[in-house]
């Protein structure tokens, strides 16, 4: 499946849901936020969110700032 992650095109196999994607990227969903096609997907919905070819996913975290 072809996805755009944080603006970069990437190809995945064995990824069906948003939760699968995060697991494959070695990301724990705490302290993260995800959007699929610019719609915020709350943590509780990661498992139920089915990704499809061409989806644009944003994975957001906090970082140092003022």
């Amino acid at each position, binding site marked *: 499946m072809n996805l755009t992650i944080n603006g970069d095109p990437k190809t995945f196999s064995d990824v069906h849901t948003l939760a699968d994607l995060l697991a494959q990227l070695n990301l724990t969903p705490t302290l993260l936020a995800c959007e699929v096609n610019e719609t915020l997907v709350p943590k509780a919905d990661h498992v139920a969110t089915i990704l499809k070819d061409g989806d644009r996913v944003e994975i957001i975290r906090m*970082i140092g*700032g003022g």
Partner: protein
Amino acid sequence: MTNTNPPLIIAGKTYSSRLFVGTGKYKTMDLMEQSLRASGAEMVTVAIRRVNLNDRDHDDFWAHIPKGMVILPNTAGCFNTADALRVSRLAREVLDTPLIKLEVLGDTKTLLPDVMSLLEATKVLVKEGFQVLAYTNDDPIVAKRLEDLGVSAVMPLAAPIGSGRGIQNPLQIRFIREAVTSVPVLVDAGVGTASDAALAMELGVDGVLMNTAIAEAQDPVLMASAMKKGVDAGREAFLAGRMPRRDYATPSSPVAGVVGHAPVSGL
């Protein structure tokens, strides 16, 4: 003490430190952690950004934030209302907090706030249940409008972000202090050194938020400690009430009983 020191309450939480610090620009995570501890701050700001999938160096950021700190996510880098709303909602999802330091910038060179968009975004976010700490210009009228919209704190700038120039318009900071009566006023951005923080507090504001002044100091940990003292000294001086300014000298020692000839004014 004749003047009481009421506690500082922001969005329902009481803070004993009136210094608020950012977490950006530190050379190392250890230096950041030590500086945060030295500052005595109880609330720190963070930015909301994309995960960098090619460089996971920042993954340990969270581990270096001292436990118990209140985390205030910001909307830094947003130049329009839609982006600021989007980042605010992402921040709430990341941190599970209603707090947001709302900044909507109008220009990349000065990073001055676009107050029209700021007011617009504030209106939406307050309705959505956010507790908005609004980064704004040193404009008392806008400050009052923000208070009317229900922000949790009004945060006028001392000078442009990261400029370290200190308070450019002390009169208007004082006007803002007078205009905003129901929520705290925090000076945010533009502080360069401890005397700038002290001056802000002497003007009667409730606290000071800074990042670059500490992070870009030669010794950030020592500067964090200096800022803490500057804020405390300024607060105490404000509460103490300064003496009036006079044009000419008044003797500190008694004028009666002086030995010698009576002097004359040279003017």
